[in-house]
């Protein structure tokens, strides 16, 4: 039996008075790529925001390495080793590439050595970034920005990386590259929780997937199982005819 790194148990989450997640449970095994898929408004991003402490669940538990994450402030959750790459990348566009990366290690700046080590690690993963360290992040192309966003999240040396729609708004070849990068990261031993709308490719690379629909957990399973399931095709892809 594989070790559970993160498990979410029967959570209900609200946005103001609107319930966004209804009694959802899922877990992420150590070293796996787990995907949350579903249409807009299905509650995927809400789930990630819940884990990173911005929108704590009203009821239910979030366990990470066996300890509860409920009601911890976002900075403490980063310290525990969970990094969240938000939808739309949200880089500091006026800051340089290097400054963006440095801020990724904001909470571990107590040791300059660790920062340097993280930087080297990120540059080893993404050599392209090293050529552009003094360029403002806003001047990078879409794909480079996404890579920088992932690199920034890697700076805190996370165990669990949460990616929210990393392929959003990227050209098709770059999308492929992004999925390659995600598999590469897994090979480095990083556990990945992936939220995506690019269903086919997501299912291809992930070990396990959960399908959310309007805040409910609709189905779950291994990628190929889901793809073969006519029910999945019908409800998710929406190609009823």
């Amino acid at each position, binding site marked *: 039996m594989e070790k559970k790194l993160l498990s979410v148990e029967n959570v209900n989450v609200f946005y103001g008075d609107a319930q966004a997640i209804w009694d959802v449970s899922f877990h992420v095994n150590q070293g796996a790529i787990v995907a949350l898929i579903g249409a807009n408004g299905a509650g995927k991003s809400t789930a990630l925001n819940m884990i990173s402490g*911005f929108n704590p669940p009203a009821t239910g538990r979030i366990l990470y390495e066996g300890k509860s994450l409920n009601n911890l402030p976002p900075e403490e959750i980063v310290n525990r080793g969970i990094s969240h790459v*938000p939808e739309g990348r949200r880089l500091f566009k006026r800051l340089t590439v290097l400054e963006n990366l440095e801020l990724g290690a*904001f909470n571990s700046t107590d040791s300059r050595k660790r920062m340097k080590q993280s930087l080297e690690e990120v540059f080893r993963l993404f050599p392209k970034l090293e050529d552009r360290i003094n360029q403002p992040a806003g001047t990078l192309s879409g794909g480079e920005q996404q890579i920088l966003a992932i690199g920034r*999240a890697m700076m805190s040396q996370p165990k669990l990386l949460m990616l929210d729609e990393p392929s959003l708004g990227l050209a098709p070849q770059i999308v492929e590259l992004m999925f390659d990068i995600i598999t590469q990261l897994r090979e480095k031993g990083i556990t990945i929780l992936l939220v995506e709308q690019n269903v086919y490719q997501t299912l291809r690379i992930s070990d396990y997937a959960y399908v959310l629909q309007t805040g409910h957990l609709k189905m779950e399973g291994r990628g190929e199982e889901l793809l073969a399931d006519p029910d999945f095709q019908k409800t998710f892809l929406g190609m009823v005819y």
Partner: protein
Amino acid sequence: MVTISSLDVFIQVIINGTLYGCIYGLAAIGLSLIFGSMQIIFIAQGAMMVLASYFTYWFFTLTSIDPLLCFILLLPVFYALGAIIYRVCFKRVARAGKNPTLLLAFGIMVLFERAMALLWSPDTRSVTTDYTTMSLSLGNINISYIRLLVFVIGIAATIIVFLFLKKTMWGKAVRGSSEDPHAAALLGISPVKVATLTFAIGISLAGVAGVAVAMSYPFDPYFGFIFSLKALVAVAIGGMGSVGGAFIGGVLLGLFESLGSYLISSGWADAISYAIFLIVLIFFPEGLFGRSAKKV
């Protein structure tokens, strides 16, 4: 002969304007920092300045501490004052949106002004040291040492703030946070800590500007408001949220005013700066230096 002397006067006007503008610039940097990261228009900045002026006056008359020393003595005091004002007042209102924060800043301004008027009477005060009247003479042009000093301190403060924002982790966090507070929080940067820090620095700068005012001009408790407005004008000229732009904006404003008073009449100086303010607001909402200045 006539033309030469009027040229001298003209140069003198420009130099005085520049030096005067430095004080606007100092106040404007603080305002710009606070606005840039919290979208708060801290209109009480001038009242904070005058408070520093009173402290300087107080120290000087009671203990004959040299005003120059006040630059250093008052820094921690104003730093703490800024942090307290943020934590006690603004933190809870920040969520309510822009208008309440502006009103709150207004309230703080009135409160401080009235308190100062009560404590130190509404009379005009001034600090006169041994070197107040000394000046550097270059031909027919005189530059008072104090103004020169203010100029140097203005430049130094700008550079220090600039370096802080550019080189330190916290400085980078302030810049990042002002661009996207949510993204910064995702990286573990606490928005409250960043806001407190920014506020504290902004008010410290008001403190520095206030000491400078005490040394170079007579002041009264209500003197600050006009400085708040002028600092805002400077920020608008330089582009909201830009440190370098705010300082340059202040210097430019000083120049405009000084030239305006020389060429038209001194009574119109205020109207000129407000007119510039309105024109910039309406036609250059990004400030005169536009996007490029916004980088820092």
